[in-house]
């Protein structure tokens, strides 16, 4: 017997179509997406006996004004898409079909997909810039020597005079303390790397769609 409720944690890095296919794969097995949280990467599917299980589609947009956001939601709703997750500044929006008559996809031409990835590219670039600014602040305000003199981060006396396996052991052991002491810097570096990966992926996707126009 198949499960009534499935909880999955899965991370998709800006690959909207892949995420849609993932949700579709459960729909085909008779599951409806009950809950989604793109911040915790959590998806909850429940078994659905209805003849019509709505498709879930994803859009990416931010809105500077409340009126614009209302207009956007109303237009999608008029066209048969129910908003199930997202807010004015969340960027990511999840919609589900209200009737079987609703179009299969949110976009009906390739240019729209190229523009979607262009918006996501802009988001990656602003995230990336924010990380760089924060790293600069940390570097100057808290005198993190990560970029200018990383050796100074290790407080252990004489660690750089060791060699061979003794050095490797001491280095890895001390590294955990270095990371702990500079946790914010390392977290920002991880975020920065993720944003760079996002930006490259988006640009690639955007070019792919533009080339097929």
């Amino acid at each position, binding site marked *: 017997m198949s499960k009534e409720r499935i909880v999955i944690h899965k991370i998709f890095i800006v690959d909207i179509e892949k995420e849609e296919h993932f949700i579709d794969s459960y729909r085909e097995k008779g599951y409806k997406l009950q809950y989604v949280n793109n911040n915790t990467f959590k998806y909850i599917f429940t078994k659905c006996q209805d003849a019509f299980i709505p498709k879930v*589609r994803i*859009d990416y*947009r931010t809105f500077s004004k409340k*009126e614009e956001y*209302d*207009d*956007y939601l*109303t*237009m*999608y709703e*008029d*066209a*048969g*898409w129910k908003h199930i997750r997202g807010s004015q500044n969340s960027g990511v929006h999840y919609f589900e079909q209200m009737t079987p008559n609703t*179009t299969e*996809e*949110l*976009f*009906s*031409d390739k*240019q*729209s997909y190229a*523009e*979607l990835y262009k918006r996501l590219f802009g988001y990656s670039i602003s995230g990336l810039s924010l990380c760089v600014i924060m790293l600069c602040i940390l570097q100057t305000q808290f005198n993190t020597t990560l970029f200018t003199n990383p050796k100074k981060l290790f407080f252990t006396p004489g660690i750089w005079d060791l060699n061979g396996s003794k050095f490797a052991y001491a280095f890895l052991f001390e590294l955990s303390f270095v990371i702990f002491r500079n946790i914010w810097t390392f977290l920002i570096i991880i975020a920065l790397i993720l944003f760079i990966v996002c930006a490259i992926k988006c640009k690639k996707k955007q070019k792919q769609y533009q080339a097929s126009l």
Partner: protein
Amino acid sequence: MNRSKYLPLTETTYLILIALIEPGHGYLIMQKVEELSDGNVRIAAGTMYGAIDNLMKLKWIKSVPSDDARRKVYQITDAGMDILKEETNRLRSMISIADSLHL
């Protein structure tokens, strides 16, 4: 006269401009386009939203006041009308070629 760099228009853009000779909101445009094309051109919500954005940036359509607080209403501008006429003339000359060959 030099032809506008925006020509030829896509079928979707052409039909949206035609639909906006009279003011209308996003979903109304989608319905009109479907009707005008005998159901052949079905614009999805996301594509419609993006198309309005693009046409607003080109200043071919403008937002007009309306009683509906939740739906923005748009209408074609003079510049949009010029492009529409230019494209129509281009299509006409194509048709006349086809006609002269009895296609």
